[in-house]
Structure formats: structure tokens, C-alpha cells
């Protein structure tokens, strides 16, 4: 009986709730990560493994290809933040208003791309961005009399293709996050604003935007990580991990290249540790600025 009371106390209950996380964290994160961290100081061969100290890291600093990968991933992350937060938010507000009919249909359609496996959508986009004259993008440019263009061979257009694919896949998902967030806003606030004679823009700026903050922070945080760790999209768009002049190479792509394709796990782990540190810095800076760690929301 005493044990039962103990488990039921308000002091202990939170620990019971988070217990599954702690277990999973220990087994499927801490242990593998420590192993990976150790491996980043090793030269791992098939037959023997040597300790090499910081050699992997110093090599990484001089590695031009790695720098390209970092630049690509950062650029991609930046543009996805610019494209995939404001627009889905506006779409969600629009969708939540009373001026849109047949909402269910649009939501379903916008969400559909996320359900398509990257294997097939990447293949479809690769064919659409083909430099040959039957690719859809080239059919468009040809219709304007511009001739064909090598979309997947130039830096800006390669990034464009990646962003088009990203927007195609994630606009609907992010919109749903925001719709879900909008649902939690108390409608009496809007009524009060109406009584005060607020315009729709004012209502958006002073009611919707502040109250969507938890959702926005969520979308921002996962987008930062998703942007930095993008890989599959690029892999499918260029039908493999090699793109002309590495215009599609990302950090995780480079990790994959090193760890999986060249089986140099030590170096790959160093890449992973750097990615972890970069992502942690960006995200924690962002979260601290947004006040996510404050204990109580007012």
C-alpha cells in the first residue's frame, strides 16, 4: 500500500511518465553515440583499428568537399526555413478562415506528397528536371522559346530543384502543424478582437501570431534539423550520392559517402559529431531566444 502511494505521489509520477524515454535514451542514443564518438578518434579498418587522436578532425578542417557539403546543407536549411514556415502558416490561417470551401479536399491533396515515398517522388522529380528535351522543366522553357537547360548540373538550379522537392513534400505537413496549432487558440480571443474592431491583419498580428508561437517554435526546430540533415532527396534527385561539382552534396550525404560507400566509419563519425554540434548550437540558440526553456508560459 505504501509503495502504491509512493508511485502515486506528485513527486514521483513525472519520473514514471518519462521512464520509457530514459530507457530508450540510454539504450538507443547514449550508448551508440558514445560508441560513435569513440570511433571518431579511430581509424577503423576491416582487420585492425588504430587510435588516431584528432587526426579525423584536423583532416575534416582541411577537407574542401566537406566544406561544400556544409555550405549546401546550410543554404538548404536557410531557404527551407524562409519558404516552409511563413507560407504554410499563411495557408493554414487561410484554410482556417470561412472563405475556403471543400477544405477536406485541399488538406488531403496538400498532404499527399508527404505520403509518397522518396524513392518514387525523387525519381519523378529527376525525370521532370532532366536536361533532355522531354523533361517538364525544359518543356516549359522551350514553350517560352528559351531552349533546354541543364537543371541538375548548375548550382542555383540544382538547389532550386531540391527546394521545389522540399516545398512539394513539406508544405502540406507544416500547414497541418499550424492548423493544429490554430485549433488550440481560444476563439473568444477573436470575438474580443472583433468587438474592439480589429482588422483581419491586426487579428493575425496580435492574436494569431503570438498564440501560434509554440507551434512555430516546433516547426522551426524540426526544420533546422531536417534542413541540416537532408540527404535522401538529394540522393534520389541525382540518382545516387554524386552530383556534378557536388552541388547536391549534403553533410549527411558526405557522412554516408564516407561511412557507407567508402566504409571509413571513423571519419564518418567525426562528420556526424560535427553535425551534432552545429545542429545543437543553432537549435539551442534559437530555443533560448524564443524562451522555450522558461518554466512557465504566461
Amino acid at each position, binding site marked *: 500500500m505504501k509503495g502504491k502511494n509512493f508511485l502515486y505521489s506528485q513527486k514521483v509520477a513525472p519520473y514514471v511518465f518519462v521512464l520509457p524515454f530514459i530507457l530508450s535514451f540510454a539504450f538507443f542514443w547514449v550508448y551508440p553515440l558514445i560508441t560513435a564518438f569513440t570511433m571518431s578518434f579511430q581509424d577503423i579498418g576491416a582487420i585492425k583499428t588504430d587510435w588516431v587522436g584528432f587526426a579525423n578532425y584536423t*583532416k575534416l578542417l582541411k577537407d574542401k568537399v566537406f566544406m561544400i557539403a556544409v555550405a549546401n546543407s546550410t543554404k538548404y536549411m536557410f531557404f527551407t526555413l524562409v519558404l516552409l514556415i511563413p507560407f504554410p502558416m499563411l495557408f493554414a490561417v487561410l484554410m482556417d478562415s470561412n472563405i475556403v470551401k471543400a477544405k477536406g479536399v485541399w488538406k488531403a491533396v496538400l498532404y499527399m506528397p508527404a505520403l509518397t515515398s522518396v524513392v518514387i517522388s525523387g525519381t519523378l522529380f529527376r525525370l521532370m528536371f532532366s536536361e*533532355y528535351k522531354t523533361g517538364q522543366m525544359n518543356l516549359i522553357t522551350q514553350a517560352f522559346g528559351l531552349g533546354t537547360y541543364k537543371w*541538375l548540373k548548375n548550382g542555383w538550379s540544382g538547389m532550386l530543384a531540391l527546394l521545389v522537392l522540399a516545398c512539394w513534400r513539406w508544405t502540406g505537413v507544416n500547414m497541418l502543424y499550424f492548423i493544429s496549432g490554430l485549433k488550440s487558440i481560444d476563439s473568444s480571443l477573436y470575438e474580443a478582437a472583433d468587438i474592439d474592431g480589429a482588422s483581419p491583419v491586426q487579428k493575425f498580428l496580435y492574436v494569431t501570431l503570438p498564440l501560434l508561437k509554440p507551434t512555430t517554435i516546433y516547426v522551426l526546430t524540426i526544420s533546422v534539423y531536417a534542413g541540416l540533415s537532408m540527404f535522401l532527396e538529394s540522393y534520389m534527385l541525382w540518382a545516387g550520392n*554524386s552530383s556534378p561539382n557536388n552541388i547536391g552534396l549534403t553533410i549527411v550525404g558526405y557522412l554516408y559517402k564516407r561511412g*557507407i*560507400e567508402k*566504409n571509413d566509419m571513423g571519419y564518418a563519425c567525426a562528420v556526424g559529431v560535427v553535425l551534432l554540434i552545429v545542429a545543437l548550437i543553432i537549435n539551442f540558440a534559437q530555443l533560448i531566444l524564443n524562451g522555450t526553456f522558461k518554466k512557465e508560459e504566461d
Partner: protein
Amino acid sequence: MKKKLISSIMSVAMAASLLAGCGSASGTPESTGSSDGGNTEATESGEAAAEETPNSTFGDANGTHLEMWTFVELHGQHYQDMAEIWNEQNPDRTIEITCTTYPYGDMHTKLLTSLEAGTGAPDICDVEVGQFPNVVAGLDQWLVPLDDYAKDYMPTMVPARMQTYQGEDGHYYGAPYHVGAAAMYYNVAAMSEAMGLSQEDVIAKIDGVKTWSDYETLGKEYLTALGDDSKHFTSVDTGGTDWLWLAMAEYGDDWTGGFDNPANCKLESVSKMLKMQQGWLKDGFAEISPDGHVDCEAGFQNIMDRNIVSFPKALWYMSRFTNYMPEEKGNWYIAKCPVFEDGQKCSVGIGGTGTVVTQQSQNKELAAEFLCWAKMSDEGEQHIWDKLGFDVCNTAMWTKDSIAHDDNNQYNAFFINYPYDVLNDIGMDNIGKISVVKISPTINEYVCTTTLNQVLEDPDYSVDDSLQELQDAVDMEQ
């Protein structure tokens, strides 16, 4: 409200089991029932599913069991068919073989992971040549040397192909499927139409091509007769190294340096080829292959649209014609590749898959013996050509009529000439070899992502500068 949630979950469950049922309705007997229970039940239903599996296990159920992984389903079928024949010939040592087809990239990851973990690897496994250095790095701690099992077949096997799958210790660890001999494909139908010649005359002209300058003369004759600036004689690759491999083989070079020497990419042969291609691009003789190489969707379209009428590619490219370009039947002729100087080798083995036996196998000897037999013996080679359409490595087979001149074979029927006649014409000693070692992926990747794009997308770019850049990048890794 709670009711609603439960009902929603129920409806999902129903939808799920409905769909699962729909799957079983079309052929597989439903044996699992609705398995929406807990974790353990899922495992059980997984096992239950095994019973209704389309059969992937072949051979004698009482024989020794062998497990094999591949990433091409047809390869697996080859072993299954061979297992049946093996059991007939060796009633005292029968085998049962299970072949599992995994996705290409992931199979190699899975194999390496299980080799490193020391458990979970199959008895026999296909390894793509590009991935081979990673696997062979484990030498005889991971893999079984095949030397003893292959020795009866060795005298007639194309040596270059056996050496491709050698380890650093000199042992042979992989059994090849094919030579992958590079040859030149010509669209005779298109050429004869444009040049106003009979097909025989065009073929005579093609047979007269010995050197690259002959090749240029023929191409220019065709382009002049055609008089269409949007067409080209051939296309050069920014996403593949075939042309460069061919050039190296002709001069007997190897940029990897093999196991003993450091890689050296600043080779005269490579530079010659690239400079020649730059010239071609400038005068419209060649174009850049759409999407980087000819072995992709845009490449097939480009060929069918007759934007190019000739290109060098390994003999396994024949299957691309039969699979994706059936309308081209009867148009194409295969010939030896041109050389820079008389007397050079005129071909090189490109691509390939080596099959290995792992040390984790419980029946290494049997697995290795079966593998070498299935891939190098007369029965095996005949089957490889009939079913897989590869140019087989055992040269004793090249002159056999059942292989070389069988008109029922789809490849023999598709092309104007017999592919094996071309092989015999080339000869096993004229097929060069570029090593695939640890540094290979680095070179290959840098060439395909950077070097080729530099010098071919901008034909005025200095080849020497570009090769120096390549060498610097490679030096960082060795």
C-alpha cells in the same frame, strides 16, 4: 469523446486488416487473421507470413542449407537453377539454397555491418565491383579465398576479370559474372540512311576503323552527309569514366596504381582522351550525354532519337537495348573500339559483380565449390549467357556454337552481328584491367563530380590543370 477516439482507432484497424486481407485475397491464403495485438504477436505473424512466402528456397530440403544475398533478382534465380543441376550431379552432397534480393545500396551496408559485427552474414553474397574494396579489405578474416576451388577453370578464364576480385594478399576472393568488355556500338540503320549507302557498305566502313582518327573520319563523313547541326556522332560522359578507362587500357595505364603503387591520375592516356573529346565538343562531332551518361532514361531517349549513332559501352549494355529500346532491333552493330596507336589493347572490363563466400559460413568448402562451379563451369557459363545475357569469362565457351551462334538467344537475334564474334575478335589478352582498390571510389567520385564537368562542360578548360586538381584531391586521401 473517448468513444470517438476508440472508434477512430477501430476504423483504422479495420482499414488496415481490410487492406491486408485484400493482399491475401489475391493469391496468398490468409493465415494470420487480425493481428493487431501486441509486439509478440507481430513477431509471430511475421513467422506465419513465412509460410505463405513465394518460394525463394530451392534445391533439396534434406541437403546442406546455403544462404545467399544478391541485389539483382535474376542473379538469385541463376543460383537456384544451378542448385537443381548440382543436386542431380552430386546426389551425395545435395544443397538447398535460399536467395534473398535486397535493395542495391542497402545490401552492401547490411553485408559490411554483419561482417564487422561478426555475425549475420550469409554463406554466399554478390558484391558490386565498386563496393568490392570495402568487402575485400577484410581478406581471409572475412572471406574465403577461392583459389583452390577455381584452379580447374583458371587457364581459360579471362585473367583481367579474376584479378579484379583479388585481395591485397594476392588471393582471389570473388567469382565474376561477366567480362563486361568495352565495345563500340554503331547505329548502322541510321548511318546507312544518312549516308545513302547499303548497310553492308556501312559495316565495311566500320570494320575499317582501327584508330581514333579513323573513327573521326567516319563520323565526319556521316555528319556531313546528314547535314543536321543538332545531331552528333557520339556523346561523351560527364558522369561516367568508361571513356577514360578505355584510354588507360589502351596504353596499359592504371590510375589507381593497384595495391603496390600510389594512385597517379596525371596520365598521358587520360589527358589524350580528354583533349580529343574537348576537340569533338568544339566542332560538334560529339555532345555531352544528357544526364551525364548513356545508361539512364535520357541516354536511352537520346539514342532512340538518333541524336548520336555510336558510343563505347560494355557488352552488358546489350540488355538495355532489349529491355528499354526494343524498337532498335536490327539497327545496331557491335565492333571493336578504336585505339590511339596500332597494336594497343582495344577493350577493358567495365563494371561487374564478384560473388564471395564469407568466413561466417558453416559450410565454406561446399559453398565455395558450388559457387565456382556455378559461375565458371560449362554448365554455369551457358546458363549465365542464356538467362543473364552476360559476356561470360570462361573463354572456352566463346567459340561454342550453343553460345556464340544460337539464334534463339535474344541478344544474338537483336544485333546485326554476333556479340561473341566481337569478343573473339578482341581476344582475351586484349582486354585490359583497371584495378578497383581502396582509393578507387575517391578517384571515381572526383572525376565524375568535378573533373569531367570542368573539362567537358567548358571545352576550353585546361586538361592539365584539371588533372592536377584531381591528383591533389586524391593525394589528400592516400
